[in-house]
Every structure is written in C-alpha cells, then in structure tokens.
C-alpha cells in the first residue's frame, strides 16, 4: 500500500470583492494533480512562482482544505475526515517550513516550540518534556544549551534544525519539506541536507521535498515532478528526468540554472516572457504562451494528456505524443 495517494487534487481560491463578498474570480493554484508515494521515497516537487507547489504541500497536509480530489494516507481517506480526525492524523504527517526566521514563535523558548506537539498529543510536562525535547535536539545536532534560548539567538541553520526537530517530535512517517534550505547559506545547506538524509535512513521517513533549486532536488530525491501553473508537466526518476527531459519547460528550467561550471556558453536557450498570472490561465496547454516549440493550434486549444514514456517517466506535452 502506498503511503500517500493523491488523486485529482485541486485547490481553487475564490477572490471575493465588494460588500456582499461576491466571488469575482478564481485563482486555480493546483489543478487536478495526481501522484503516489511509497514508504521510504524521496519525492521532489520542482517549480517556480505560480506553479502551485507550496499550495500542494499545504493541501496534502490539509492545512488548506482541498477544493476537490482525494488524498489517501496509508489507505485512509483524508478528504472525508472531520476536523478532529484530521488533527489526530497530524501525528503521522508533518512539515518543515521554508523560512527559519518566522517559523518559530519569537516569544517562545526552543523548549516550548519543539515541545508543543508533545504537550498537545502526549500531554508531557516538566522534566519528562525537557528530556524528550533534549533527545530531539540532539538528534538534529543541537544540545541542551539551546533549549532555553529564544529563536532570535540562534542562527538560520540552527533555527531550521529546530524546525526539523519539531517536525519529528511525534515520530511521523511522512515529512513534507517546503524549501527547507532555500533561506540558508550554501555551506549550512549542505550540512542540513546531509542531516535530512541521515534522518531519513535512521527513522525510515518518506519525504515530499519541495524546492525551486534543481541541484538540491537532484542531490536529495529519487523521483521528481515538475510543476507549472498548477499542473504536473513531467514526472519521473531524477536521473532520467534531468538527463533526458521530455517537456519543453523542463528543458528550459534545466538550462536556466546558472551552473558553477563555467563551460556553459551562450548557446543556451533562454525562456522569454513572464510566467502568466494564475488569474488568467492560458487555454489549452498552459505553457504555450512561452513555448518556442509549440506545434500550432493544438497547443493553444487542447490540454495535453500525460504520456507514459516508459520507466516511470511521464510528461504532458503534445509533442510527446508525436514521438513514440
């Protein structure tokens, strides 16, 4: 049984205007996204702004209520649960947030922040709480001396480790990581990624790793999905997708990454234009407004279906149909 099964998940945000709060427009942040995770996977989700990747994580975790679709965690249907059942499910799925500087309550000590889930679910207090929190802090490479400090006294890397410790407090099986190292320096990022890998092995965790940084995804994940304007445009094993990308957007994304190797030259292709606003989605294939290899009317009018390219690699592009 898969640990996570997402079927046709959509997240729409109505825009309400006026005194009577009439819905004037809808932001379709996530549109019919489906994927599955097996226990122990490291699944990466890559995209730029407007891709919907952050919203996706929150929808899976039910921090936002999905507009439609189904989410199964270990076979249990999350979308049919009520608030209290969902709250109980939180013990099994947790999240590490992006900005270490704002994901910790500035008024609470590290002990209180990391211990919060333990106080809520296990009703721990006093010495028991302190010793369990100390264990968690040591797991991420911090120590007892950090317990009574406030967030502003810690560095960004340390704060992020506190966030990881907090997420692990209830021994979850699924961990969602929303750009966990984007706000960190490169040297600290490397240490944090290594930590995450060790923790995954030690605690048998499944990761859903969201990032805009393709190199980090390559380092951490075995499978990856590329998102654009709320849809998965390509999905597959990391090495295969990065070495032989099928979707035009993936190809441009890969070539746009400024690589430290200076051998890349001006024969690279640069994607023109801006990312369309999610308020005003293009018809047909959402990438056609910027796609230099579009084949014509079909790209503007018909939404491409996901084509299986073999070896668990799939892409949603009309061109992929043409090449068998």
């Amino acid at each position: 049984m898969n640990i996570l099964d997402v079927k046709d998940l959509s997240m729409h945000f109505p825009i309400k205007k006026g005194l009577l709060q009439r819905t004037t427009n809808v932001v379709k942040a996530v549109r019919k996204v489906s994927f599955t995770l097996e226990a122990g996977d490291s699944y990466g989700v890559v995209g730029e702004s407007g891709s919907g990747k952050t919203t996706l994580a929150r929808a899976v975790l039910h921090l936002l209520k999905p507009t439609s679709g189904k989410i199964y965690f270990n076979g249990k249907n999350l979308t049919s649960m009520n608030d209290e059942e969902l709250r109980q499910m939180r013990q099994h799925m947790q999240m590490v947030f992006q900005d270490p500087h704002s994901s910790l309550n500035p008024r609470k000590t590290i002990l209180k922040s990391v211990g919060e889930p333990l106080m809520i679910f296990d009703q721990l207090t006093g010495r028991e709480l302190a010793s369990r929190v100390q264990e968690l802090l040591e797991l991420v490479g911090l120590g007892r001396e950090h317990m009574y400090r406030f967030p502003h006294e810690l560095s960004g890397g340390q704060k992020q480790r506190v966030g990881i410790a907090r997420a692990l407090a209830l021994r979850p099986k699924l961990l969602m990581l929303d750009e966990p190292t984007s706000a960190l320096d490169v040297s600290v990022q490397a240490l944090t990624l290594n930590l995450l890998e060790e923790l995954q092995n030690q605690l048998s965790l499944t990761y859903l790793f969201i990032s805009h940084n393709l190199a980090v995804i390559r380092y951490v994940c075995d499978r990856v999905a590329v998102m654009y304007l709320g849809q998965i445009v390509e999905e597959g094993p990391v090495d295969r997708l990065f070495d032989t990308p099928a979707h035009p957007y993936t190809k441009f994304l890969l070539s746009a990454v400024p690589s430290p190797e200076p051998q890349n030259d001006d024969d690279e292709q640069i994607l023109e234009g801006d990312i369309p606003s999610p308020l005003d989605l293009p018809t047909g294939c959402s990438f056609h407004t910027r796609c230099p290899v579009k084949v014509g009317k079909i790209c503007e009018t018909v939404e491409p279906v996901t084509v299986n390219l073999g070896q668990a690699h799939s892409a949603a592009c009309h061109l992929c149909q043409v090449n068998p």
Partner: protein
Amino acid sequence: MEIKDLALHFDTFEGTAKVLDGVSLSLERGDTLGVVGETGCGKSITAKAILGLLPTPPARIVGGQILFKGEDLLTKNQKEIGAVRGTRIAMIFQDPMTYLNPVFSIEKQMTDVIIRHSKQNKKPLNKKQARDKAVELLESVQIPSPAQRIGEYPHEFSGGMRQRVLIAMALSGDPELLIADEPTTALDVTIQAQILRLLKGLVNRLHLSILLISHDLGVVAKLCKRVAVMYAGNVVETSSIENIFNSPLHPYSKGLLNSIPKLKKRDATLEGIAGSIPSFITPPQGCRFAPRCTEAMELCQKVKPVLAQVEPGHSFACHLYPACRPADA
C-alpha cells in the same frame, strides 16, 4: 575602482563589531567582478560603503580607501557623494518591489530620477525630454510596449519587469560603474536567466563595469569574469572565474565549492563547512577562518594572513602559502 584595506566598525549594544577587516578589491573599466560570500561576510556592507549608504552613527570607517578613478570616495562630504551616486556609480538591489514606491507611476519615478541626474550632469532636461528618455531606457532593458506601460504602477509589473525598471533607472545617469547587490535572488530561475543575459548585454554594449554581490557562485559565473571570495570581513581569494572552479586555493573557497550541489550529476556527498562565523566583537586573533579550517596550523591562530599573489590574477590569503605572512611577522 580600487578598494584598499577598507576597515569598518559597527557600534552595538554588546560592543564594537569589527565588521570589515581590511577589504581590498579592484575593478577595471569594462570589467565584471563578482563578490561572493555567505551571510555575515560583509559583502553587502562593502557595497553600501562605496556609496556612503551606511548610517554613520553605528557604522564607522576606521581605515582604508575607496578609490574611484583615482579619487578617494571616503574623503568626500555628503554633497559630493550625492553627486557621485546615480551619475557615476549606480546601484541596484535585491527585492525590486520594496525599491519602487507603490503609489507613484513608473513614469513619475523614472522622470524624477532622470531630471535629477540630468541636472547633476549639467545638461538639464524638461519633463517631456525626460519622458522620452525614460521610454528609451525601458526599451533598452527590453520591456515590451514601453510607451504604453510607462504610465502603469509597480504592482502591475511582474518581479522580473520591476527589476528591469530598476536597472533602467540605474542607467539613467549614464554611470560608469553599476553595483548590483543580489539582483536576482528574489526572482525565479527562468527570469533570473533573462536578467543576467540583459546585464551581460549592457556590459558589452555600454562598456559598463559591474560589481556583482551574490551568495550564488553560479550566478557570478554566468556574468562575471573575476571573482572575490569573502569571509567574515576579509577577502580570502580573488581570481578569474575559471581558476576558482578549477583550482581554488583557500580552504574556505574549497569548502564552499564542495558544498554546492551539482546539476549535471548527483554528487557522492556534499561536504559543507562545520561551525559558524566568528564573533565580530571578539574576533579571533590571526586568521578569522582558522577555527573552522581543516588545514589550520598553529601560525593561523596567531598571525593574520595577507592577500598575496600566487600567479597573475590569482591571490589568496592563507598561511599555506608562505608569501601570505605579513612582512613584520
């Protein structure tokens, strides 16, 4: 431009932080230099010090010179520096949204800047001429339909467009040097590629010199020919872009390169650099990187290494190279 041994202190509640400890950089006309470093290395502060943008009660320049075409900018008073800003040296910053006033149209903001610079350059323009120049500038940064869009407001532009507007405003005074402080950090990867290409084109077309501050070596590699690596208020290595990747000399540069995940293939393991930056209030005597350095020797704790040239265009400051010992040590 040449920065010689710039030293800067910051007065804080807990003491005086010796933030810049003898920074030396140089940049030729038409050259592109990238300054790379992590949080706290002092790269942004150095950039702001050039244009006198630091608040001088807590910040104090305690030594060194900033020579721009032979003149020391540190000896200039407020008025003289004001004349340099925008017209001879221009600067663009990280987050385009906060650097544009949301309640004024782009036209108003650009014409204001253009008129002011034109007065400083002793060739004053009126409103109509300024507007025409603004449209021209917007076109040069590849904003589509500039004549129509100039009347719009910042929130109607996307992030990449806003940064282009800021670049256009920076160019309006015909500067010779452009300082760019993390100009693409807040932008998406595909938009970042566009902006970098634009900046590269400007260097070629206008013979513009660029000082690029970034924490991302990849971005620096795309745009710059030379790079300076900074750590804890010191420049630890300067070299050409090729050399920093092929043969980094300073242990910090090596550590940094080993921490960057590669796109082309998965690394075996990234190294990272353990520890954290030293306190600026009680900095280590000797080399500031010594506490974290895997190759530290006893000498490193006691004596601070100076920048010494290993081969033309490649210098670093580390006791692994005997010439880095200061003359009196």
